[in-house]
Structure formats: structure tokens, C-alpha cells
């Protein structure tokens, strides 16, 4: 299966792209996606541990399973206001 990853703020600047597709084994969780991404994107390895995660525009837990076509976003520490 494949999920769509979107990058914002520090992550987008580190990656140099706004989004990409990530292939994952069926039933992979947010935690597994995070691990795979840190391997594939060394520029993110230091940033990802401080990030929350959102699946389909809502906050998600590490054990949340992903489904094909999901939108996955890692959320760096917030700075709104």
C-alpha cells in the first residue's frame, strides 16, 4: 500500500519537497512509517522524534494503522499564535 506524506515548516525545508508517496507493507502503523522515513530521509532523522503525527488530518497514535491512500503528516512542535 501507499500513503501520501506531506511536509510542512522545518520538515519541508529539510526535505526540500512538499510531499511524496511512501510504499508501506499492508497494515503498517504510524510508528513503522516513521521508522522507514527516518531511514530513507536522513535529513529528517533528527527532526522526526520531536514530531507528532496526523493521519487524514487528525492526530494519530504511534500504533494507529495506516490504510492505502492515507494522508500522513509529521507535525513538528507547534508555533501558532
Amino acid at each position: 500500500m501507499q500513503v501520501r506524506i506531506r511536509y510542512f515548516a522545518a520538515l519541508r525545508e529539510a526535505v526540500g519537497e512538499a510531499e511524496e508517496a511512501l510504499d508501506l507493507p499492508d497494515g503498517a502503523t504510524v510508528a513503522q512509517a516513521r521508522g522507514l522515513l527516518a531511514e530513507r530521509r536522513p535529513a529528517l532523522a533528527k527532526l522526526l522524534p520531536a514530531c507528532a503525527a496526523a493521519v487524514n488530518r487528525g492526530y494519530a497514535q504511534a500504533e494507529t494503522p495506516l490504510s492505502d491512500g492515507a494522508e500522513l503528516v509529521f507535525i513538528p512542535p507547534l508555533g501558532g499564535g
Partner: protein
Amino acid sequence: MADETSAETSAETSEQALPAPIIHITRDPLDGEAIRALEQAVTTAGAGGIVTFAGVVRDNARGKRVRALEYDAYPEMAESEMARIAAEVAQRWPESALAMVHRIGPLAIGECSVVVVAACPHRAEAFEACRYAIDALKASVPIWKKEIYEDGQEWVEG
């Protein structure tokens, strides 16, 4: 006033319907005119107290001189989180009307990054609802701030 015979029963709570919450992520300036428009949009005839919070770009942070800021957002999720917060406010303060607007993109010192307006029958509720909404926005809405200094820049928390 429209129906004088019902004045006695309807006087406690104004019969004007509460406006739906106003929620936006915008690249447009949040200037005085924009803020006034938000205040007017949430003010009904039963509103006795209106509390407006405006967050403004300061010239310093954490001991560093800030030249300018840039805000980024995950816009679809930011608006849905803001809508969730507005629903919580409506549940806690049922007679409140709320507007929350956050600007993104580059901002200069003195420009307004966020506005929250709460209009309620009484002032205590208006202060509480406005404070709750801006605190919740800062805690959960996916918006990020990059501070630009004389000698560099940094995405910062808070």
C-alpha cells in the same frame, strides 16, 4: 422587537440566532478593518461583552532581536482543529459566538498573526471563551513559526 407579544418570554435570551463560528487560515493582513469585521460578525443584540485577542509580531524573542516572522500551516487540518475548538467553546459557553483567524506567510514586526473574538451576554464568559480558544489554538492547531534574525532563522516552538 419584531414580535412584541413574545417580549416577556424571549427577553432573557435574545431571540437573534447565534452566528456560526468564523474559522480561517489566511494570507491576507489582519489589519484593523479585518478585526473590526470579525467583531461585528460575531456580535448579536444579546452580546454584552466582546473580548478580542490579537497576537502581534514582537521585535524580540528569547533574548534575540527578531526582524520578521514567517508562519506556515497545514491548512486543512488547521481549520478542522479550529472547528473542533470552536465546537468545544460552543458547548462550554452555549451563548458565545466565536471567530478565530490565523494569518500565515511572511509577517513584519507589529503585524497581527492571530485574532480570536468571543462575544457573549456577559463579560466573564467572553474572557473565558476567548482565553480558552487561543490557548487551545496554540496547543493543537498545526501552525508553525519561523523567526528571522539579523544573522539567521529558526523554526521555533510556542
